[in-house]
């Protein structure tokens, strides 16, 4: 038989106490539990400052070899180990070199059919008197196209680092290249007036004569680039930009590389598919001879000259 318990009776039972403890309104061991909201953690300004300062000191001390024994130990170890390592590698390489075939021996592995054909049939097959030009621009044209692209991508990388596109930022950075130099230096200008045409002429001569004698696109382009740099340093940017500004630079660079690429596509395609490439080799020794080598030399020279000048201008002003 069940009966209803009174409130008072119920409050004495263990069940009631447990329930109150569970709800958190009453702790059986204490009086009423006090629930206070947690205070937000607040640090005093002085403490924060001190902590920051200590952190900074720690950072400085971390790489101070007098305070950090690990760094000191590493430095000592580095000083001992790096020469040992270098000596070891130098020794290994020297030993390996001593086993290599002696220089200039006729029976060396390098004196094989490859070299023989380059030297003996090169003149006839490429039409170039300069057999180095024949080798790099005709037999191994693919590598040289890659090498020209190395120059191009190097300029692009320098542009990533140094190019300042916006005129406002450039003014702010005060990238004025003639701030610390004498303006209109008479001696420099007179000498440049005499030298620049000669340098240009010689550079172009080396470029055009690449298949007949020493030189070629890379050497000639470097000379033309040097001439441009001399002109800029004597007459300043403003005068140079009348005939060589960023727009012209981009157009010349892209045109030269694209033409080079197109010539190469034609050369590879006809060569690989066994087609006749219709490029006359001419009489060896003439200026208009040796097929593709002459135009390629000119194009490579243009690209190299642009690269040289762009490097100079980028390092100086952050702009071409």
């Amino acid at each position, binding site marked *: 038989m069940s009966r209803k318990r009174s409130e008072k009776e119920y409050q004495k039972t263990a069940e009631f106490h447990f329930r109150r403890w569970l709800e958190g309104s009453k702790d059986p061991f204490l009086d009423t539990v006090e629930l206070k909201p947690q205070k937000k953690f607040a640090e005093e300004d002085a403490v924060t400052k001190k902590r920051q300062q200590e952190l900074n000191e720690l950072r400085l001390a971390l790489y101070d070899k007098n305070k950090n024994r690990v760094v000191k130990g590493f430095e000592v170890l580095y000083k001992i180990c790096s020469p040992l390592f270098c000596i070891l590698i130098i020794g290994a*390489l020297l030993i*390996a070199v001593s086993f290599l*075939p002696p220089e200039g021996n006729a029976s060396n592995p*390098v004196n094989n059919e*490859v070299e023989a054909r380059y030297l003996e049939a090169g003149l006839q*097959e490429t039409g170039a008197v300069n057999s180095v030009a024949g080798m790099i621009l005709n037999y191994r044209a693919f590598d040289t196209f890659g090498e020209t692209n190395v120059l191009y991508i190097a300029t692009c990388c320098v542009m990533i*680092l140094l190019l300042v596109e916006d005129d406002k930022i450039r003014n702010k950075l005060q990238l004025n290249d003639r701030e610390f130099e004498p303006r209109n230096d008479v001696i420099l200008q007179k000498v440049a007036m005499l030298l620049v045409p000669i340098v240009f002429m010689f550079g172009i001569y080396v470029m055009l004569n690449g298949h007949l004698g020493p030189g070629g696109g890379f050497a000639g382009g470097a000379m033309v680039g040097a001439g441009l740099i001399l002109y800029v340093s004597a007459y300043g940017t403003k005068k140079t930009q009348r005939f060589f500004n960023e727009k012209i630079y981009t157009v010349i660079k892209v045109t030269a590389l694209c033409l080079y690429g197109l010539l190469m596509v034609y050369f590879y395609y006809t060569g*690989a598919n066994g087609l006749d490439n219709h490029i006359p080799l001419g009489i060896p020794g003439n200026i208009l001879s040796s097929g593709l080598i002459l135009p390629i030399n000119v194009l490579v020279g243009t690209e190299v000259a642009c690269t040289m000048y762009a490097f100079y201008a980028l390092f100086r002003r952050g702009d071409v």
Partner: protein
Amino acid sequence: MLDFVQNFPCFSILLCMFAGIISSALNGKSAKLLNRCVLILITVMSAVLLVYLVGKGESFVYVAGSFPAPWGNELRAGVLEAGMALFFCIIMLLSLLGGGYKLDLELEHGKEKLYYIMINLLMSSLLALIYTNDMFTAYVFVEINTISACGLIMIRQWGRTIEAATRYMIMSLLGSGLLLMGLVFLYGITGHLLMSNIHTQVVQIAATETYRVPLMVTIALICVGLAIKSALFPFHNWLPDAYGYSTVSSAAILSSLVSKGYIFLLIKIIYRVIGFNIIQDSKVINILFVFGLAGMIFGSLSAMKEKDIRRMIAYSSVAQIGYIYMGFGLGTTAGMIASIFHIISHAASKSLLFVSAAGLSDVSGDSTDFFDLTGAAYRNKAAGAAFTVGSLSMVGLPLFAGFISKLLFAQAAAISSSWKMLPTLVVLALSTILNAIYFMKTVVRIYTPVKWNAVLHSKVTIKDNPVTAFALFLFIVLNILLGMCSQPVMNLINSGLHMFA
């Protein structure tokens, strides 16, 4: 007369170069469009080439120019080369799609076109490394690869990326220098630069025992040079900064393509230049094996210590590169197949991880710190799911690409008869556990609910960024495809290796 398809290797390399050259005359938007078009075109061309080569059943040589080998330059394409080119193109395209939105935010105004120049030339150099049959061509394109990778790192102009790029350049140039020295030695003792001709000469040298010392030094120089460039364990110090702080697509491309390009070149050198038997007999391969094992452990340990998610993923790359070199080190064909499969599966998962990690840090106040990332998967659901898939693949759960490569490694180790079996299996198990610890820790962290913090948190849905979500979806599909249908890929690798020899 060649079939027209056989021109595709040369065309795809030159197309990339043209795109790179023309990009400098365009503005950022057109350069981007051109880059995408060229990449899609090359993907299609590589796929056609792959189908053609599978049908033909043998590799072919393409004479670049009118002079045949050994006088002129040559390209060579087999099933493995075409397959790799196709795969690299797909990963490149997906990485650019997935990380493209970040470029607008992180690049200095007006330098987008320079980024695409770097991407185009990097792609051309990767394709050239895959297809070339000439050691010196390989070196020239290694140079392009190095410079463009530096550009990709430092184009996000920030103190840490400049420092990372400097480090990368120093280490990478050291690697190039060693490779070049190796090539000089090789030319000195064989007199050739073309891979097949060098191989015949090397076989003779090995048979007659002349020039034995220079040959060993050459193998060591080339292996160490390429190991530095692909961040094998003791030479990995440049890696966490370079991958951790550069812009997302750069990190994805660097980790999944650039280092893999060098490893593929090393595979080519092992098979086509020196010869697999001679490499097996030399002791250099044991060194690669030991370094690979050490990398598997120490890379994972460093990753566990990291509190920065990007750097953790970067350190995990060190461990994965260790797996690949461990496969080389086994010195068996099965090990090599496992390594090549791991190149593919790692590239697919690592780029996925980088892109999704960027998505996660976007909704956590651009922070890459673990603590801030708590609950990020609820705020960016696509990235969270993608990160989980990538992690599971890295840990090696069945269904995903990583499982197959781990299975292949274990099988290769089990059937190898040398002393290498036990250490491989033990380290493989240990490394898997370590992988699971740090990747699962991150997955649990991003799926832990956290109270909304108005300053730090934001929400990104699929509709906000459909391109990235699409790229992530394709990445996941690729990963599961590799995990579920691995047999066709394995068959391709197998027939490709047969064509190599």
